[in-house]
Structure formats: C-alpha cells, structure tokens
C-alpha cells in the first residue's frame, strides 16, 4: 500500500466482500496453480492443438488437461457445449469451495448468479455430416437436401449447446442457484458488468450471495476468424515481435454483503470498491477509444471515492495501445503511479473471463510476492520485490467499444 493512504473505510453496511475465488486458464486449473505459473513468469501461449491452425499463424493460450467435471448433462450435449461448460463449472466449483459455501449455506433463491460469456461457436464436426448430406454435384449446399435429410444428421440437442446461456443454466441446476441472474456477452466489459450487477443485487438486498464471473470463447477456427476480422489478433507475421493472442479461461468470484460474510465467519479476500462503464469506438473503428477507456477508469475512481493516487496496481484488460495510453493519461500525474501489469501476455485475450481472472489473480497474489518483470509495463529487468497490492484497478475492454473498469481492495489495502 502506498504511504500516506488512509486505510479502507470498511466495514460500512453497503460494502460487498469477496469470499471465494475460482479460475481455470492456460496457466493452471485452479487459482493457486495460476498464481504459481504467473509469478514464475510463465506464458500459457503455445501451438494450437485440436485442429490445424497453421493458416492463422498465431499461438493461443488453450486450457489443456482440464479435469472432467461430472454433470447430468447428456454426454453428447456436454461435448457440444465443449469447454464453455467445463470452464464455467470448474471455476464455480472452486469459488464455492473456497468460500466454504455448501448447498445449505444460503437458500437457493438467495443465491444470485451473473456471468459474462464469450460466444459459442459450433464444432465443425457437429455440422459436417449435415453439410455432406446436403451437397449438390458442384459441392454447394442444396437446401432441399438439407431440409429433407441433411439436418437429421445434427444431434437433436445441438441447438441448446449453441446458446451461450445454457452452460450458465446448467451451472444453476448443478449448484442450486435460483436467484437474480444475468448473462452478459461477450467481451471483457461483460465480465466487469457481471461483477457490477452481482454487487448491486447484494447491496440492494436481492440476494445474500452472488457468483460473478466470466468465461472465454473456446479456441476454434470460427473464433479465431472472428478475432482476426475484429482486429483482436493480427494477420500472420514474419517478425518475432510479440503479437496479441487468444486464450481460454473461466473465472468466478463469490460475493457477499460484508456483514453476512463476517457473520458466517467467511474469509474475506477483498472488497468491491467501485465501477465505471462507457462505450465509444476509436476513430479507426477497431477498438474502444482512449477517451472512453479513461472515462470508465475515472468513473470507477469516483465511484470508489478515490483519486488516481489510491490505486496500487492496474491490471490491463487488453493488448491495445489505447488502453495503455488511457491508463497513462489518468495516472501519470501521480507522484507514485501504480504498477501496471498486462496478464494478457500470459493468458491471452480471454474475453469476458479476462477481468474476473485478473481480479482473482490480484486478490490471490501473496502480499510479499515479486511480480514477474516480463508482464510489467513498462517491462522491467527485475520484479517488484516487497510490493504489496492494496487497491487494484481491473479493466475489461471490448474491441467494439464497450469499456468497464472496477476497483477492488485486497487484503493488503489496510
């Protein structure tokens, strides 16, 4: 924590505590594994497996060896839903366990659930048999054939798997979540929105506990194509310069009113302090504008009752220069600017999961940890020994212009 800062003012009645963390990404299948990998300076980026991605000429940070999560979803539907389901279930499970919440801790109607969910793309193999049955002699789709026979090759529950709220609904069934809810989509700002809505329903007394998190897209030819068309990843490059890449992740926070958490003896890992949201595309139409991002950050600071000097750590939500410039615009006047970390260099662009993953990482990093120099901006030759994370700004940015910023207070804030 920076010298001269007053300790946080909690526990005021309307503050929201974070009592559980769950995450899965290319660095590991749990928050401790991810922290270990991150602090070691590891990157999860690697050659894409599962299909021949050579044409895309880019790496990705895929989740590999994800332990199977047993649900009552029909096996073929679970395959169709793919990693969307398993990333969500694994991160919810870890977060609830960490918060010591079992089915009897809160009544089902008092359990809220909010998530940002990346888009679901079909697996080509799910539709390929239907396509092959529907081709004419020229190799084009003959829709008469498709409607008469081709579509019958599609697994009847395949449509369910295409709805990006269905994994969310399965989690609600599995974990008994009946309360206030929302599925936001699909970029980083959606992950921040999920945490915001969860915090609000708790403050307003509409739930006693809420899960808030996000899930990325699964790395697939369609997802990579969309990322390239949207400018999230560049074309294949012959230079060795580091380039943005996509990642897979799921991340979840357990939120409770501070008083509830204290009452049941939960470990308080951090608190929610403030939010800000804006939307504006940059002039070139490829990303959020610098102005929109800085406005979201300032709104979050204002909501938290903080000045820029109150932030110890900024966790960037993207690879984009507009975000870094906006952060500098807001913080550079401070005599002691915050440490800036770009976890995307380790885990990739993970869409709606990104800001929640960053939040979980920020809250789980041990107080005396040395942050890895290769993910600091500007890059340093050494880490940040002795640095204690107090208040953290986490951004979630959409390539389509949406911006969300949230401020968390870690256990070291006081």
């Amino acid at each position, binding site marked *: 924590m920076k010298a001269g800062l007053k300790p946080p003012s909690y526990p005021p009645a309307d503050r929201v505590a974070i009592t559980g963390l769950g995450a899965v990404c290319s660095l590991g299948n749990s928050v401790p594994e991810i922290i270990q990998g991150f602090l070691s300076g590891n990157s999860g980026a690697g050659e894409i497996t599962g299909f*021949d*991605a*050579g*044409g895309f*000429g880019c790496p990705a940070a895929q989740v590999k060896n994800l332990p199977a999560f047993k649900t009552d*979803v029909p096996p073929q539907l679970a395959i169709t839903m793919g990693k969307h389901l398993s990333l969500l279930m694994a991160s919810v499970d870890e977060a609830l366990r960490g918060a010591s919440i079992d089915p009897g801790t809160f009544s089902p109607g008092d359990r809220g659930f909010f998530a940002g969910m990346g*888009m*679901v793309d*079909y697996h*080509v193999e799910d*539709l*390929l048999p239907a*396509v092959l049955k529907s081709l004419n002699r020229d190799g*084009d*789709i003959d*829709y*008469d054939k498709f*409607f*008469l026979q081709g*579509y019958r090759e*599609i697994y*009847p*529950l395949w*449509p369910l798997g*295409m709805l*990006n*709220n*269905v994994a*969310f*609904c*399965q989690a*609600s*069934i599995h974990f*008994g*979540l*009946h309360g*206030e*809810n*929302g*599925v*936001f*989509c*699909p*970029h980083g*700002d*959606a992950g921040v*929105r999920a945490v915001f*809505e969860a915090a609000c329903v708790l403050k307003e007394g*509409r739930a006693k506990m809420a899960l808030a998190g996000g899930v990325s897209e699964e790395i697939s*030819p*369609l997802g990579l*194509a*969309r990322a390239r068309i949207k400018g999230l990843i560049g074309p294949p490059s012959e230079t060795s310069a580091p380039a943005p890449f996509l990642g897979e992740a799921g991340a979840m926070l357990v939120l409770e009113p501070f008083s509830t958490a204290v009452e049941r003896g939960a470990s308080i890992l951090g608190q929610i302090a403030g939010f800000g*949201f*804006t*939307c504006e*595309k940059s002039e070139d139409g490829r990303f959020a504008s610098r102005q929109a991002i800085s*406005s979201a950050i300032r709104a979050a600071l204002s909501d938290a009752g903080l000045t820029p000097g109150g932030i110890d750590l900024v966790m960037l939500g993207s690879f984009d220069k507009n975000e870094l410039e906006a952060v500098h615009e807001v913080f550079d006047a401070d005599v002691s600017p915050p440490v800036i970390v770009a976890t995307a260099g380790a885990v990739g662009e993970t869409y709606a999961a990104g800001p929640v993953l960053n939040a979980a990482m920020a809250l789980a990093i041990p107080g005396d940890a040395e942050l890895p120099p290769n993910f600091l901006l500007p890059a340093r030759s050494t880490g940040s020994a002795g640095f204690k994370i107090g208040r953290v700004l986490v951004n979630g940015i959409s390539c*389509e*212009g949406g911006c969300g910023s949230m401020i968390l207070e870690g256990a070291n804030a006081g």
Partner: protein
Amino acid sequence: MADRKVVITGLGLATALGLEVEQNWRKALKGVSGVSRIRLECAGKSAVQAAAQVSDDDWRTICDDFPSEAESEGERRTLFALWAGKKALSDAGLGRVAEDRSRFGAAMGAGLGVNRLEDISRWLTAGKKFDPVRFAGELDLVERESIIRNNSSAPATLMAAKFGLKGPNITITSACASATLALGAAYRAVKRGEADLVLAGGADSMINPVGLVFFVLLGSVAVSKMEPEHLCRPFDRKRSGLVMGEGAGMAVLEEESHALARGARIYAEVAGFASTMDAWRLTAPHPEGNGAEACMSLALADSKIPPEGIDYINAHGTSTKLNDLAETIAIKRVFGNCAPPPAISSSKSIIGHLLAGSGGPEFAFTVLSVAQNRIHPTINLSSPDPKCDLDYVPNVARERVVRAALSNSFGFGGQNSTIVVRKY
C-alpha cells in the same frame, strides 16, 4: 437503490406487422396475425413453413435507411435493432444527436447470430474434410451475415456508435428471456443513477436455414399443416409449438426529472423488475412454474404493487404445451385470489416468437396497454385447453383500465424475467 423514477418516453418497433408503432398497435388490437407462409427462397422443403417475417418492402426500407450498415453487416437482427432504436429515440424527441450523450446507454437482448452452412462447405477438401488452413486464408469470403462477423453484441455496440450513446453498453444473451432482462438492466441502470437514459429492448431473427431447423431439432416448433395465420395458438388445446417471428422492439427508459426537464411525453413508468432461475431442466420449464412464480412475485415486491393492483399480464405465452401450462399455474399461484383477475394475452399469437428479442415488442405492447387502457387479444384461442383456464382475452381486444401490468419472458434453460409497468 436511489429514489429515481424511471419512465418510458419512446418506443420503436420492427415486426411482421410493420415498422411503425401505431401501425403495429392498431393491427395487434384488431388481432391481425403477422404469421404467413415463409418467404425464404431456399426453404421450400423445410418442415417449418410459417413465420412472422418482416415484409420484403419493410426490409428494403430499413436497408435504405442504413445503407452502410446493410452493406457491412447484412444480417437482419442488427438492422432491425437499428431501425427500432432510431424510431424509439425519435419518438422520445431525441432524433438528432445534439446533446451530451455520455450518460445515455444501450441495453440489448440479442440472439446468437446466423450460423451458415457455407462457412463449412466452401472450405471442404476433396476428401470432404473441413480445411481450416484454407479457411484461415480466405476470411474475406466469409458471408457478411455470418456469426463469424456479427456476434451477439453487434446490435448494442452499433446502436451506440450510430446514435452516440456513450454510457453503459449491455448485451444480454439469455435465450427468450434476453430482451426483458435487458430492459430490467436498463431500468436498474437508470434507477441506480448509472445513466440518465438507456435505449433498451431486443432484436432477433432466426429465419434462415440453420435457424429453421433449430427448433425442429428441439421439438418445440409448430409444424402442423394448419393455415399459417392460425398456427400460433397460445393456451389453445390445438397448440403444437412456437412460431418464429423476427424483428425488434426498443424503448427509451429515462429518469423522470431528466424527461420532465426536456418536456418529453411520458407513456408510463417502469415500476419494478426481477429475474430468477428455474434451475430445473435445460429442456423444460419447471412443471409447477416455480421459477416463474418467484419471478412475478419478486417483481411485484420490487414495484410495491400488490397482486390486486395488476390489471394485465403480457404473458410469455409461447404456444408450446409445456410453457403455457407452467405459466398458467404460476399466474394462478400469484394472482389466484385477485378479483377481478388480471387479463392475460400473448403477443406471440400475433407477431410470433421473436426469441431473444421477444421481450422488446411485448414490452412496447404492455406500455401501450397501460397508457391507453386497451389490451390486444390472444388470437387463435378457439378451443381453450381445459388446463389453461384463465382470462386470456381470446380473439377480441378489450378496453379495461390498466393501472399496472407485467410483461413476462421465460428463457430456454430456465432463466425468467418479469418487468412491471405502471400508469404515469
């Protein structure tokens, strides 16, 4: 939550009934069905032969109004959203971007986008395998309406860019509950002071080849040989499934003092909202309507209106066996002691099921009922299901003082949402 009232100052629609709110409302009150034989050239052999499609003339009007977006995006859902959004802003007296819009937001319920089989067939090898390497090198050949180009957030972010809405931008994807959840998110954003105004609603179109088989595979779409205009028959004994519609419904939700300060016309007030989850089955609603009941009860509690204060319910009313029965049971459990009971109708009987967008036009019709004390009918209700024995305003519109009303949307997977509208 901050003590801010949220009022409705603008409405915009694009449905099979037309592109103007007045035209939609007039036809809805008359019980004119928007469902007709499907006009998709390639769908001659489709099991689904009826849908409530936006007319070709109206589609051309929209494309002419948004030529660059029609050229770049191509897909109907986003264009419908732009049209209805523009109309709603214009209706609210905000047609020209003159004022500071940094506290104006957008909240949209939107569907999954268009999956095209050509995105596979175009890149098959001689051995009939998909070639991802060639695909990666030819992304300029991806169809402009493909989900690869247009993800779910396209309508909300394009509206923000087009209309200068620089505040919160929200996309909700919760199947058929999406638009009402988006309206609820907008209501709360204004109520909490996060924004002064949010353009909110929903848009969808799945009248494309893969979309047409979507609900056939799930066994929830009407495929009977009945005349198209009679096919969608919520609460009727002969109902056989949902009938797809397409379009958008948008509303301007505005903080009261903001609206009054600029002299805006106020249709009604948003009085409450709630969401719940069935957490029951992915493929079916809870048979006793538990989640729906909780949702309506919580929305009423949020509005501080007792059940007796509700005169009208715009039902989810999908025309499926399971939903209509579960919703009926849930309504009975919430309103069973009310005398007189609220009138209930299903907009889907007229404009079809707009899927993720369905809550948008249904909210607009609910607002108009509250504002004008008129309730559109549930059409095709000629042989009521004995288990669905409430007052569904069968076939003929009704005049009734509507002090307050609910609009329900219950999504595939078990997400429920209810919004409460009160007379202003």
